[in-house]
C-alpha cells in the first residue's frame, strides 16, 4: 500500500509576486516619504539640503544593501526580525520584530491620515479642523478597506500597489525632468549653497529629518516569501529601489535649491526670493513641498497644481497599505519562530493570506487612529493631551515612535548582518555587500562587512539623536519594547521555551528548506555542497 499523506492543513504563503510587484511593495513604502521629508529638510538645512539628503542617502544605501544581501540569502517572510533572530538569537529577534511592528501599525494610521489631509486640498470638507468626524470616518474606512484588500490576497493588493507605483514613478520623473530642463539654474544652486550654508547642528538635524525620506525599504524583504525566485529577483528590485529613491531625493533637493520659479516669488516687502526660501519657519509650506515645487515647473505646473495633491494622497495611501502588509508578514514570521503565539501563522484556506495577523494589527492601527483623533473629536480631552503629551497632537506622538522604531530595528539588522557573516559563511550569497575584509573565524573563511559597521554607526547615531531630541519617543518607545518583552517572556514561559536564550534549531536543514521552497534549487545544491565540504574539512582535522 502506498504511503499517501493527507492534504496539508496549513497551506504556505503563495508565491505570486513578480519583480514589479516586489519593487512596488518597497516603493509604495519609501516613495511617499519624500512628500513629507523634502519641505522639512529645506526648512532646516537650507543651502545644504542636498548635502543632508546625500548624508542620509549614504546611511540609506548601507541599510538597503544590508537588506538586499540578507533577503536574497534568507528569502523568508519577516525580513529584519528574522535576520536578527538568526544572527543574534530569539530574544533580540523579538525585540527587532516588535520595534518594526510598532512602526508598521503606526505607518497604517499615519499615512492613511496624511492621505486624507492631501485629499482635503481639493475637497475642503475633509479638512480635519473643519469636519473632524468626517475626517475620522474616512481614515477609518481607508484602514478597514486596506485590511480587506490584504485579506483577499497579495496578488490583488500587489496589483493595486504596482499600478500606483508605476504612475508615481512616471509622474515624479516628469516633474524632475521638466523642472531641470526648463527651470533649473546652476548659479542659483551654487549661490544658495555658498551663502546659506547651515550650522553643523542644523545640518545634523536636517540629516536626521532626511532619513525619514528613506524609511521602508524592508518591505521588499518582508515580501520575500511571496516573491517568485526571491534570491534572483530581490537583489534587482532592492538595488533598483535604492537607486530610484536616491535619484529622486537628490534631484528634488538640488532642483529646489536651483529652481528659477515659473511664477516669481517675493517676500512681504516685494523683494524676490529663491524658491527654497519659502520653507524656513513656514510649516504650511513645509507640508506640501513637492506640490509647491511641481507648481513652479513651466507649463507642467498648471496641471501639477491639480494633479500632485491627488498623487500625494494616493501614494500615502499605498504607503499605508504597505504598513498592513508589513505588520502581518512580520507577525507571521515571528509566530513560525515561536516569538509570537501560533495564531498569527494561520493562513486562510481560500485566500492563502495570514488573515489573523492582518486583522489583529489593523485593529491596533485603528486604536492608534482613535488615540490620534480623540482631541479633535472630543475637545474636552485637549487639556488631558496638553498635560500628559506636552500639547502635541496624537500624530506628533506617533511620529516620534515611528522614528524610534525604525532606528532601533535597523540598528539590530546591521548587527545581525555582521553576526551572520561570521557564523553562517556557508550560505550562498547571490548578492554580497562590497568592501569586505577576509578573515578566518572558527576555522571558516568569512568576509567581515565594513559597510555593515559604517551603517550601524550611522543609524545608531540617528537612534541616539532621536532619543535626545524627542521626549515622547524617549518615553513611549522604550515602553513599547518593555511591554513587548514582558508579553514575550509570558508566552515563552507558557510554552516552556527558553526565556532569554534561543530555541535549538537546525539552521542547516532550515536553510535547505528555505531555498527549496524559494525554488532556488541551484543555490540549494551550492549550500549542500558547501556544508559537505565544511564537514569534510572538520573530519580531516584541518578545521579546529
Amino acid at each position, binding site marked *: *500500500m*502506498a*504511503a*499517501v*499523506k493527507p*492534504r496539508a492543513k496549513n497551506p504556505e504563503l503563495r*508565491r505570486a509576486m513578480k*519583480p*514589479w510587484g516586489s*519593487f512596488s511593495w518597497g516603493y509604495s513604502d519609501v516613495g511617499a516619504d519624500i512628500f513629507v521629508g523634502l519641505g522639512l529638510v529645506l526648512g532646516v538645512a537650507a543651502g545644504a539640503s542636498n548635502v543632508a539628503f546625500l548624508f542620509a542617502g549614504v546611511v540609506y544605501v548601507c541599510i538597503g544593501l544590508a537588506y538586499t544581501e540578507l533577503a536574497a540569502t534568507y528569502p523568508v517572510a519577516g525580513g529584519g526580525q528574522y535576520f536578527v533572530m538568526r544572527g543574534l538569537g530569539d530574544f533580540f529577534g523579538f525585540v527587532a520584530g516588535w520595534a518594526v511592528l510598532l512602526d508598521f501599525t503606526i505607518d497604517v494610521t499615519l499615512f492613511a491620515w496624511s492621505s486624507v489631509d492631501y485629499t482635503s486640498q481639493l475637497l475642503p470638507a475633509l479638512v480635519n479642523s473643519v469636519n473632524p468626524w468626517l475626517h475620522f470616518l474616512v481614515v477609518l474606512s481607508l484602514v478597514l478597506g486596506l485590511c480587506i484588500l490584504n485579506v483577499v490576497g497579495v496578488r490583488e493588493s500587489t496589483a493595486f500597489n504596482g499600478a500606483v507605483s508605476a504612475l508615481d*514613478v512616471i509622474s515624479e*520623473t516628469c516633474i*524632475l*525632468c*521638466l*523642472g*531641470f*530642463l*526648463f*527651470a*533649473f*539654474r*546652476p548659479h542659483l544652486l551654487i549661490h544658495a549653497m555658498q551663502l546659506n550654508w547651515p550650522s553643523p547642528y542644523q545640518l545634523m538635524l536636517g540629516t536626521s529629518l532626511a532619513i525619514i525620506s528613506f524609511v521602508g525599504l524592508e518591505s521588499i524583504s518582508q515580501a520575500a516569501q511571496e516573491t*517568485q*525566485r526571491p534570491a*534572483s*529577483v530581490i537583489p*534587482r*528590485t532592492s*538595488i*533598483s529601489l535604492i*537607486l*530610484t529613491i536616491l*535619484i529622486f531625493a537628490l*534631484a528634488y533637493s*538640488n532642483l529646489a535649491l536651483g529652481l*528659477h*520659479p*515659473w*511664477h*516669481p*516669488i*517675493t517676500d512681504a516687502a516685494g523683494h524676490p526670493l529663491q524658491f527654497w526660501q519659502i520653507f524656513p519657519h513656514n510649516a504650511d509650506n513645509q507640508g506640501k513641498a513637492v506640490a509647491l515645487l511641481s507648481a513652479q515647473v*513651466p507649463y507642467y505646473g498648471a496641471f501639477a497644481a491639480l494633479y500632485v495633491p491627488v498623487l500625494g494622497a494616493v501614494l500615502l495611501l499605498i504607503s499605508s497599505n504597505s504598513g498592513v502588509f508589513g505588520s502581518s508578514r512580520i507577525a507571521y514570521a515571528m509566530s513560525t519562530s515561536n516569538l509570537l503565539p501560533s495564531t498569527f501563522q494561520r493562513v486562510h484556506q481560500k485566500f492563502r493570506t495570514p488573515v489573523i495577523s492582518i486583522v489583529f494589527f489593523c485593529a491596533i492601527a485603528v486604536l492608534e487612529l482613535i488615540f490620534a483623533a480623540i482631541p479633535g473629536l472630543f475637545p474636552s480631552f485637549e487639556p488631558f493631551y496638553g498635560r500628559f503629551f506636552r500639547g502635541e497632537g496624537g500624530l506628533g506622538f506617533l511620529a516620534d515612535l515611528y522614528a524610534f522604531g525604525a532606528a532601533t530595528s535597523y540598528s539590530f539588522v546591521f548587527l545581525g548582518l555582521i553576526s551572520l557573516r561570521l557564523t553562517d559563511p556557508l550560505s550562498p550569497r547571490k548578492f554580497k555587500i562590497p568592501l569586505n575584509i577576509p578573515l578566518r573565524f572558527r576555522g571558516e573563511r568569512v568576509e567581515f562587512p565594513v559597510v555593515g559597521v559604517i551603517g550601524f554607526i550611522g543609524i545608531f547615531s540617528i537612534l541616539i539623536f532621536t532619543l535626545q531630541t524627542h521626549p515622547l519617543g524617549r518615553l513611549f518607545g522604550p515602553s513599547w519594547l518593555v511591554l513587548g518583552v514582558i508579553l514575550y517572556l509570558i508566552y515563552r514561559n507558557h510554552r516552556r521555551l527558553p526565556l532569554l536564550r534561543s530555541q535549538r534549531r537546525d539552521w542547516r536543514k532550515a536553510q535547505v528548506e528555505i531555498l*527549496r521552497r524559494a*525554488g*532556488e*534549487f*541551484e543555490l540549494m545544491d551550492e549550500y549542500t555542497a558547501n556544508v559537505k565540504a565544511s564537514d569534510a574539512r572538520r573530519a580531516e582535522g584541518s578545521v579546529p
Partner: protein
Amino acid sequence: MNASSSEIQVTVAGAVIALGIAGGVGAILWWMLHPPSSYVQRIAAEAESELERMVGSLIVAFSPEIDSSHMMVLAARLARGERSELLAIYVIEVPYTLPPDAEMESEERAALDALGAAETIAQKSNVTIRTETIKARSTKQAVLDIAKREKANLIILGSYREGKYSGAPLGREIEEIAADAKCDVLIGVEGKHGTLLIDESGASSQSS
C-alpha cells in the same frame, strides 16, 4: 507671489541632468524587470515550446520510470480552461530492501526539478498547482491511491523512459495504471517522428 510667468531658459546642465534622470530611471527599471532565467524556468520554457498545443488536467504523474514533463503544459492549459485544480506528483519507488521512508537523495533531487518545472509551467498559465512527492512500494498503487483521494477525473501520464529502446513505449507501470484506474487516463507517447497522443479514456478505464 506674482502671477506673471518667467521666461523659459534651458541650460546645458539642466538638460543633461534631465536626460540623466529619465535615462537612469528607465535603465534601472528595465534591468530590474529582466532577471536571468533559472534552470527550472529554462526546463519549463523548453517544455512549453515543444508541447505548446497540448493540454491536460487534474493529476500529472511523474516517476523515475515515467517521464510526464512533456504533458505538463497540456495539463496546465486544460486546468485553466476548466478552472480545475492541478496536482503534480512524483512517485519514488522504494525497494523492499529499504525502509519505507528511506533517504533516496538522487531521486528526491530529480523530483524537485520535475515538480519545480511543473510549478513554473502552471504559474505561467496562471493555474493553481499543488505538488507532492510520494514514496511508495509501487508506483501504480501510489498513483491510484492519490487519484482516489483527490477524486480525480483524469490522470495524465507520459511514456516509459526506456520505451524507445525496449520497443514497449508504455511500459508495465503505465499499462497497469491505465488498466486499473477508476477514472480517465491520458497517455502521451513521444513517437519516432514527433509527438503522438494516445487517449486511453473509455477504452481501458471506467470513469465511475
